[in-house]
């Protein structure tokens, strides 16, 4: 199989993540899904092994690793439990990176070491009922009132809403329409006027504590400002890194797990007097799945390395995320088909793999919006194959 140029440290990390996930996270994966119960304890385990501080500098208790290492680790965790991988990507992902990149020194010292120790989860909140991919349409607003901001509005699709301690919330800080008026504040869980709204039950990745956030004259100290109005441009690199480091490795890991389970099933199950694996039609499905997975892995690893080297273009993350998302849907879909009725039953993992990856082509930028980006860059002459 694909052997990227891993250095000794990366190889050991990949191996230890795989072993940890297989032993500690896999046994509870089906239950977390069935009971919609976030496996929050797993974050403590990951922190003990140093994975929660992966992307943070040593000064804040981290190990200063890049997006590529994050991809390697999250992929391995997702092979065993996609919900745990989501929790890890939420811990080490966009919010922590944003604080690191644009936060004040006081904010960094206050939050980041606790993130690295697995004691603090910072949820990222952008979407609203009428502002999904269209960030400029955000309507939740904060008005300055002396030493405070007063927030009113509601957010949708906030992963980790019911678990987080702090929320990095995009909102309108300035009446200027569109992106120019959008910035972000850090909101702590127990702030008066802030509450967690309706739980959102999704088709897959059911154990991430997703819910609405509600703000009713919520007063936040002015020092919690992290992105001033019109400053979203400064964290575009954070978003690009998260688009690569957070979502696609989960898809890749789940696709790998589905593939392994499908191969086992084809070898073990016999119909018409021979193992299913002896049917050419089914062999070709396996071959197509392997081609798909390898192409996706190569693309994702290369893109992550380019992000770390600051050599990525505008289209890189969009191309990689779109391909990996759709690959995972194809592969987990075929795995169900190869498993037959067992593929549909909840006693087997196939249907969960399929449900877990489906929403990934919608979250973190729909594959349609990403195609818009890719096409725009092509037509502007900024993309060369």
């Amino acid at each position, binding site marked *: 199989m694909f052997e990227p140029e891993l250095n000794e440290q990366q190889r050991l990390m990949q191996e230890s993540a795989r072993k940890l996930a297989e032993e500690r996270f896999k046994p509870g994966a089906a239950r977390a899904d069935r009971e919609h119960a976030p496996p929050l304890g797993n974050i403590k385990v990951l922190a003990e092994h140093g994975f929660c501080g992966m992307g943070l500098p040593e000064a804040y208790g981290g190990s200063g690793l890049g997006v590529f290492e994050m991809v390697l680790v999250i992929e391995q965790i997702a092979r065993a439990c996609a919900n745990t991988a989501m929790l890890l990507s939420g811990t080490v992902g966009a919010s922590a990176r944003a604080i690191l990149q644009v936060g004040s020194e006081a904010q960094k010292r206050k939050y980041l070491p606790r993130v690295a120790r697995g004691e603090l989860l910072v949820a990222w909140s952008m*979407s609203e009922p*009428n502002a*999904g*991919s*269209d960030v*400029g*349409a955000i309507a939740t607003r904060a008005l300055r009132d002396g030493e405070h901001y007063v927030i009113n509005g509601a957010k*949708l*699709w906030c992963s980790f809403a019911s678990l987080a301690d702090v929320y990095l919330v995009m909102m309108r800080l300035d009446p200027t329409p569109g992106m120019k008026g959008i910035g972000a504040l850090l909101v702590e869980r127990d702030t008066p006027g802030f509450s967690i709204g309706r739980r*959102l*039950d*999704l*088709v*897959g990745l059911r154990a991430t504590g997703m819910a609405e956030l509600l703000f009713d004259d919520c007063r936040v100290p002015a020092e919690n400002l992290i992105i001033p109005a019109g400053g979203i441009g400064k964290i575009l690199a954070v978003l690009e890194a998260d688009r690569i480091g957070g979502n696609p490795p989960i898809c890749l890991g789940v696709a790998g797990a589905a593939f392994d389970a499908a191969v086992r099933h084809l070898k073990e*199950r*016999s*119909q*018409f*007097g021979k193992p299913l694996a002896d049917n050419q*039609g*089914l062999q070709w499905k396996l071959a197509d799945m392997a081609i798909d997975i390898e192409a996706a892995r190569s693309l994702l690893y290369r893109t992550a390395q380019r992000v770390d080297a600051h050599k990525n273009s505008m289209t890189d993350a969009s191309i990689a995320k779109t391909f990996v998302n759709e690959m995972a849907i194809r592969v987990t*879909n075929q795995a*169900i*088909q190869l498993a*037959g*009725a067992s*593929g*549909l*039953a*909840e*006693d087997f993992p196939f*249907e969960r793999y*399929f*449900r877990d990856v*489906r*929403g990934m*082509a*919608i*979250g973190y930028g*729909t*594959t*349609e919006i990403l*195609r818009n980006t890719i096409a725009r860059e092509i037509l502007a002459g900024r993309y060369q194959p």
Partner: protein
Amino acid sequence: MDFSLPEELRSFQRMVRRFVDTELIPLEHKEPRGLLPATRDRLRALTRDMGLWLLDVPQSLGGQGLSALGQSIFWEEFSRSVAILPRDFYIIGPFVGAVLVQLKGEQKERYLDPVIRGEKLPCFAQTEPDAGTDPASMRTRAVRDGDHYVINGVKRFITDAEKADFAQVMALTDPVKGARGGVSCFLVDMNTPGVKVTTRYQTMMGEAPCEVVFQDARVPATNLVGNEGDGFRLAQEWITLGRILRHGARACGVAERCLEMGASYAKQRVTFGAPLATRQSIQWMLADTYTELQAARHMVRYAAWKFDQGEDVRTESHIAKMYSVEMGFRAADRCLQIHGGIGLTTDFPVERFWRDQRAYLITEGAAEVMRMTVARHVLKYY
């Protein structure tokens, strides 16, 4: 050539559509986790009044004796809603099926009549752990012992077994002949000693079929349906019609509703200052679904019509099922994608359509097995 539906079927279609629009679709939000008992009773009374009761049962037995074409219209319209769980057919009367309809004499009095009166619930037990799409691998044995048969074996993914009064069990009476005349059908009371429902499998479409174990279960020889070796022949019509109606026509209804929901959401959802419906890529998703739906609908109605002419429609039923179920899933998947995040929530019926439809690429013969059979047909005649 006349492709139009007869007037009586068009008015039947309008009636079923009205029923689905006014009675079933509102329940998708009101009772999303399955219908309440009172709702079920009310709906059953309604369908009975409307003549949507025992559609496939001959009039001589108190049913509607509806043609296969008429039933295809029904299944297409009925499947526009996910208010009723997949395979929960009882809203439109007891689920009788082709085997029971053929019963005569005492068997009819003991098993068919009580089912039609709603006093007994049947289930159908053919699939086994190692015999799904390949019934020839069946291992369940029925051995004659005096005036009884002794049945041993395991049946899996048996819908309704947990509440059924009796099962129509397919078992080998002649292992040498196997699928070619060695399988027989028995009526087995579920309270027979040695018959046990051991496991229920929760599935992604909300249905939970069972595993049933037969351990030295003694069944009176009078409970053999037809003669020894008749098993597959008895079930053939039920399975053929199942491909056309419960898979083919059903998928058309799913696609129709997905088209309605997708188009309506695309018109109302505004992003970047314009409705999604003005985006060409979204328009093309809808155009593809609409085109594929027309193709599937023609295949399904042709197969049903040809069945009504008394012709052999095995190939037509295979291609109609294979194409329609895959078409229905593409339609549901595009609809989900058009809805974005809201489509993923369980508050909305879109993800239900998507999950349910995925299952139909496997149930009662996977799409791959349809392809095998179609390929055999092609290589024989071309």
